C-alpha cells in the first residue's frame, strides 16, 4: 500500500485551521522568515530548480513563470494572484487546503510575491466556497496582526498587502486571463494572448498567477531545498500531487502522493477498490477537460509527461471512477452539458459549438439504435475544429474527453461486439 506524503497538506487535520499559534508551532512562517533573508533572485531560482509544475492543471514549470514576472522590470507595479477558483469538476483539493491550513497558502503567496517584488496580492476564491473564504479571511487578519502581512514584514522592509476577491459562478474565471478580467471588476471574458500575464496582466501590470496547491508547496521547498523536492516523485514531475478521487470507489477523498504512483494503486489500494465489487469501467482523469482512461491504462504512472505519452492528461488531478455498468455516453453527455453551460459566448466556435455538440449527442442518444461509430467520429471532427479555432482553453477542451472516450474505450467495445 503506497504511503501518502503530505507536503501541501502537511498540516491538514493536525492543527486547528483557525489558530495561527498552532500553525506557527508547526514551523509556520519559518519559510517566509528564511525567504526574506535572501534575495528574491534566490527564491525563484530555488523554485525553478525544484521542478515544481503548476498544480492547477496546465503543469507549466512554476519557476519559469515566476522568473518571467521577476525579470520583466524592477521598481515597477506588479501583482500576484492566487487562483482559488477550483472549477474543474471532480476537483476539491484547493478547498481542503484553504479550509484546513489557510496560513500555508498565505505563507506561499507571500513568498511568491517577494520573489518577484510584488506589493499587492489577491486570492480569487470561487464564490461558492463560503467556508474557505471565511477561513482565509480570518487567517489574513491574523497574519496582519502578527506582522506576516502588511508593511515591513518581519522587519525586512518588504511590504505586501493581500485581499480576497470572490468569483460568481463562472468556470471560465478559473482561466488565468479571464480571472484577471474578473478581478478588475469586469465580466468574465478571456483576453487575447499575447500579451501574457507576466508582461501585461492585472491593470496592465506584470502579474504572477498560481494555483492554490502550487503555492502551498512553496514553504516546504524553501525550507527543505530544491534537491529535496526533486528527490520525491518522478524526474519530469517532481514532488507530490493531491489526487481527488471520487465516483464508484469505496473510499472517495483527497490523497497526496508522490508523482509516479500508478492509477491502479490509487483506485484499488488508496481508494479501496470499486464499490460493490463491480469491474472497472473507466476513469476520467482531469475533470471535464480531462481524458478517459481504460483498463489498459491502469498501470500508467501519474505524472504530466507519462500520462501525456499514454494519450491521457493529468489536469487538476481529479480522478472520477466509473464501474462497468455506467453508461459512458451519459457521462459524456453531462460533460458536454457542462461546457455548453460554461461557455462565455465570446467566440463563435465555442459558443455555438458546445451547444451543437451537446444537442447532437443528446438527439442521437434518444434514437432507438445508437450507433457510436457514426456519431462519435462526427462529434470529434467538430470538436477538433472547435479546438483549433477557439479563443481560449475552454473551446480547446471538449475534444479531450470525446477523443479519449472514443479511442480508448468505445472503439474497443464495438470491436468486441
Amino acid at each position: 500500500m503506497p504511503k501518502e506524503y503530505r507536503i501541501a497538506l502537511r498540516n491538514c487535520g493536525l492543527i486547528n485551521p483557525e489558530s495561527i499559534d498552532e500553525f506557527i508551532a508547526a514551523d509556520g512562517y519559518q519559510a517566509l522568515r528564511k525567504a526574506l533573508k535572501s534575495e528574491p533572485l534566490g527564491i525563484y531560482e530555488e523554485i525553478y530548480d525544484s521542478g515544481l509544475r503548476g498544480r492547477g492543471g496546465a503543469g507549466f514549470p512554476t519557476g519559469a513563470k515566476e522568473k518571467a514576472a521577476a525579470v520583466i522590470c524592477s521598481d515597477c507595479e506588479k501583482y500576484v494572484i492566487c487562483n482559488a477558483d477550483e472549477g474543474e469538476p471532480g476537483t476539491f483539493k484547493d478547498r481542503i487546503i484553504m479550509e484546513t491550513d489557510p496560513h500555508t497558502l498565505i505563507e506561499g503567496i507571500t513568498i511568491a510575491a517577494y520573489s518577484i517584488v510584488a506589493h499587492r496580492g489577491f486570492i480569487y476564491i470561487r464564490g461558492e466556497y463560503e467556508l474557505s473564504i471565511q477561513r482565509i479571511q480570518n487567517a489574513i487578519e491574523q497574519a496582519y496582526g502578527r506582522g506576516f502581512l502588511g508593511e515591513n514584514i518581519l522587519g525586512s522592509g518588504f511590504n505586501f498587502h493581500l485581499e480576497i476577491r470572490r468569483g460568481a459562478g463562472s468556470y471560465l474565471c478559473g482561466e488565468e486571463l479571464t480571472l484577471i478580467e474578473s478581478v478588475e471588476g469586469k465580466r468574465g471574458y478571456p483576453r487575447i494572448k499575447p500579451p501574457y500575464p507576466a508582461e501585461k496582466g492585472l491593470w496592465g501590470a506584470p502579474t504572477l498567477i498560481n494555483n492554490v496547491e502550487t503555492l502551498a508547496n512553496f514553504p516546504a521547498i524553501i525550507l527543505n531545498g530544491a534537491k529535496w523536492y526533486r528527490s520525491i516523485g518522478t524526474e519530469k514531475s517532481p514532488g507530490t500531487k493531491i489526487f481527488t478521487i471520487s465516483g464508484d470507489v469505496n473510499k472517495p477523498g483527497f490523497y497526496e502522493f508522490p508523482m509516479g504512483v500508478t492509477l491502479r494503486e490509487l483506485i484499488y489500494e488508496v481508494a479501496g477498490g470499486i464499490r460493490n465489487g463491480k469491474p472497472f469501467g473507466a476513469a476520467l482523469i482531469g475533470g471535464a477537460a480531462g481524458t478517459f482512461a481504460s483498463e489498459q491504462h491502469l498501470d500508467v504512472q501519474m505524472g504530466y509527461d507519462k500520462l501525456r505519452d499514454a494519450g491521457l492528461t493529468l489536469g487538476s488531478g481529479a480522478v472520477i471512477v466509473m464501474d462497468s455498468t455506467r453508461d459512458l455516453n451519459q457521462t459524456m453527455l453531462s460533460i458536454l452539458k457542462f461546457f455548453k453551460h460554461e461557455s462565455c459566448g465570446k467566440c463563435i466556435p465555442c459558443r455555438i459549438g458546445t451547444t451543437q455538440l451537446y444537442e447532437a449527442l443528446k438527439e442521437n442518444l434518444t434514437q432507438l439504435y445508437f450507433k457510436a461509430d457514426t456519431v462519435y467520429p462526427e462529434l470529434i471532427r467538430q470538436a477538433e475544429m472547435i479546438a483549433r479555432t477557439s479563443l481560449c482553453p475552454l473551446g480547446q477542451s471538449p475534444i479531450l474527453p470525446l477523443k479519449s472516450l472514443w479511442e480508448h474505450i468505445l472503439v474497443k467495445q464495438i470491436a468486441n461486439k
Partner: protein
Amino acid sequence: MAKVKIHIDGKEVLANEGANLLHEARLNGFNIPGLCYHHKLTPTGACRLCLVKVEGQRGMVASCTLTVKEGMNIVAFDQELEDTRRFLLDYLVSEQNTHYDGTYADELRDLMFRYNLDMQENRFFKPVKPQVEFRIDNSSPVLTYDPSKCIKCFRCIKACDEVQGKNVLSFYERGLNSFIVAGTGVWGDSECDGCGECIQLCPTGAIVEKPNRKFIKLDRVEQRVRTTCPYCGVGCQIELLVQDGKIVRSNGVEGVSPNDGRLCVKGRFGYEFVHSPDRLTVPLIRKNGELVESTWDEALTLIATKFSELKEKYGPDSLAGYASAKCTNEDNYIFQKFIRTVFGTNNIDYCTRLCHASTVTAMLKSIGDGAGSNSIEDFETTDCLVVTGNNIIETHPITATYVKRGAAKGMKIIVIDPKWTPLVAYATLWLQPRLGTDVALLNGMVREIIANNWVDHKFIESRVEGGMQAFLELKELVEKYTPEVTEKITGVPAQKIKDAAQIYATAKTAMVATGMGMSQQVTGTHNVFSLLNMILITGKIGKERCGIDPPRGQNNVQGATDVGCHPAMYPGYIPVTNAENRRKVAEVWGVPFERLSDRPGLTTVEIMQAAYHGKIKGLYIMGENPMISDPNLNHTEEALKKLDFLVVQDIFHTETTRFAHVVLPASTWAEKNGTFVNSDRRVLRVRKAVDCPGQAREDWRIVHELAARMGKPMPYYRDEAEIFDELARVTPIMAGISHARLEHQGVQWPCPTPNHPGTPTLYLDKFNTPSGKAKLFPVEHVDQTERATTEYPFILNSGRILYHYHTGTMSRRNKALTNFTNHPYVIIHPNDASKLGVKSGERVRITSPRGTLETQVHIAEEVLEGELFMPWHYTEAQVNRLTRDELDPYSRIAPFKISAVRVESIS
C-alpha cells in the same frame, strides 16, 4: 508609421509597421472575412473568421490580433482556411434569425452569400436556440434591438465605450443566451443618449434606427449625399440617405475630420424637421392683420417698395439686417453684400452677438483672431484641458468624445462651472464659483501661478507686448487676489484654486475651452481677458496642442462672421472704417466706392434697442428668431411692433413671424449647396440632398432677386461655387479655398493660396495683432450690477441641453428628439426648494424686473444654493422674458447667464 515588407499569399506587400494586420491586408486587396473587427475599435478576436496562418507559429491565428512586423509571412487564403471559415459561418448562421427586411446593411448576409450559405440546404448545422426568451427591445426613442439577430461581436459595447466614452452597453447572461442590455435593462430606461454609434457599427440587423424603419429600403435609396450637420459648431460630416425625395437616414462619415463617423442624437436623428408639414411653402403678406398666402412676385415687389421708401425717407441707417448662423457662407455673404450695397448701411449682425461676442472681442484685442486656435484632435492629445462655462458633453458632444478619450489616457481636466455638468464625472477638479465671479477666480489663479513662478518668462519676453513690464503690471493688479480673498468672493475653496493653478500651469501642454458661461455676462469681455492673461503668462498658446478654443454653438456662426456679417468688418475681418479696404471691396463687388458706408453699424441687441426708440424703421431677418433668443423679450416684442416694416425669411413660422409684414419661405441646409465653417476654422461642404418644398427657395436666391428688384442688382452667379469664388477673392483667410478643393475634406483657414494646406494650429510664429505679439489686459473683479435682493433673491442661469437646439424650431420637430425630452423646467437646489415648499414636478412662477413665466420644478444639487438654471429651448417658458438687455460695453452682449428673479409656488 514606417513601411515594412511582408508577404501575404506569396505576394510582397508594403505595410505600416505596427498597424493591425487584418486592416493592412484588406487595404492591400486581401479581403479576409471578419465580423467583429472594426478599425475604430480595439481588436476583439471573437468571430475567428479572420484566421490566417503565420510562418513560425503553430495553428491558425486571428489576424485582427496581430500587428505588422517586418518579414512576416502570412497565408490568408488556402483550402483549409476557407473551409474553416465556412464551418464557422455555418455555425453562426445556425444561431441566427436570418430574416432580412432590407432596412439595414448586413455584413453577415454578405458573407453568407460569399460562402454559399444563403440557402438552407447548403448548411450543415441544425438551428440552435437560446434557453432564455429573446425579446425585441423597442423601448429606445431612436433604435430597436433584436437579440435574435445579434452575433455577439462586442462592436456596440466597444463603440459606446471606446469611441463615445459612455459605457452604457453590456452583455447579459452568457454563452448562447447572451444579449445586450443598456444600463441595467432595456434601452429606454438607461443613460443611452441616442448617439447611435452602436447602430452605425452593428454589422447585422440587431441594432437598427427606428425612424422610417417601415418605409426605408436600402436598395431603393436613390442618393447618398455627404454634407455637414446643421446643428452645432462641431461640423460633423454626415451622409444623408434619400429615398423617394425624402431624407430617411443620417449616417456619420467614417475616416474624415472632424468627427470620424461619430454623431450625436441630433446629427443622427434630427433631420425629420426638413419634411415637417409645418414648413413654410408660400410667401405670406400681412393683410388686415392676418398673414395670407401670396406670390413671390407680389411679396418681393412689396418688400422692394417698402424698403426703398424707408431708405429714401429716413436714410440707409434706418434699415438693418439679421443674418443667420444657420445659413451657408454663400447665403450669408450675399446677405451682407445686400445690406451693404443695396441698403447702404453697416447695420448687419446676427445671433453671434448673443453668444461668443465677448470671447471674440477679447481674443481679437489680445491675440488677433476670434476663432479657436487648435483642431478638434488636440482635445484628445493635450496634457491638460480647462473647460470653463461650457457644458461640452451636451453642447458639443463629438468634441467631448475626444476629451473623454484623452481623459482615459490620463489627460487632466479642470472644469470651471457654477452648475454641475456631465464632464465633472471625468474631471480631475471641479471649481464651482458663484455666478459672476469669474474674473476674481482667474485673477486668483494667476496670482498663484506668479507666486510659484510657474511662469514662462521666455514666452513673455519674446511674444507678449510690453514683455516684463506688462507682466509686472498684471502681477501688481492680481496681488490682492490671495487664495483666501478669492475664496471669499467666488466660494471656491482656496486649496482648489491653488491645485487648479498648479495643474494648468505645470502641464506640458494645455488648452482652454471657453463657452457661454464666460461670454454671456455684462463683464464677459473682461472674463475672457482674465482667462487670456493666464494663458499668456504660462505660455500655453502659440504651440502645438496649446491655445484657446471657444466651441462654437451653431453650425455656421463662425462662417457668418468670417464672410462679413459684422457691423464693423467686411469679409475676412477687415475693418469697414478703413478707406483702402472699402476701395478694394467695392472693386471686387463692382459697386461705386461711395455706396459703401464708412460708419460702423449697430450690433444685434443695439438694433433691437434702436427699433424700440424709432431709429430703425425697417428690418430684414434671415433665419433668426429674436423673439426667443434676444434678451428682455417684453422689450424686444415692443421693439418689433414699432418697426414700420419687418421681413422674416425662415423655414417655419416662429415667435418672430407673428410680427412680420412679409414672411418668405426659405431653405434648410439639406436643400442647397454651399459651405459652413466649424469651430476649428474648417470650411466644410454642404450639399443639396432634397428639393425645397412648395415654392420655398434657397436663401441667397431670394436676397439676390430682391437686390435686383431694388434697382441694385448683383452679378449673376451660376451656382454657389461661383459665390464662394468671389467670397474667396475678398476674404484673404479663405483665398486659397474653393468648392472643388473641399470635395473630399474641409480646409482650415487661414489658407491664403490654393497650394497652402490650411492651418491646424494658430500663432505658431506670431499672433495676429499689428505688432505680432499678444497683449495682456489686467482687469479687476467688479460686483455684478444685478444682484440678489430681498425682492428677487435668486440668480437665474440659462443654457442648453443635449436633445434640443436653441429656439427649438428645428429640434422640436423631430419625434426622435422630443421622445427623449420635450418640456421646460427650472433646476432648484434641494435646500431652496424646501424653503420655498416646492417639490419636483410642481409648477412655479418665476419673475424678474423684466417679465414673468411659469414652469415646472426639477430639484437637483446641480446648482449652488441661491442659483437656478433653465434650458431656454421652450416657447412655453420663454427664459428671455426674464433676462435683461444691459450690455457688456465692449462686446455688446447681454448677460443671459445672470438675472435676479423670485420664485413663487403656484400649485
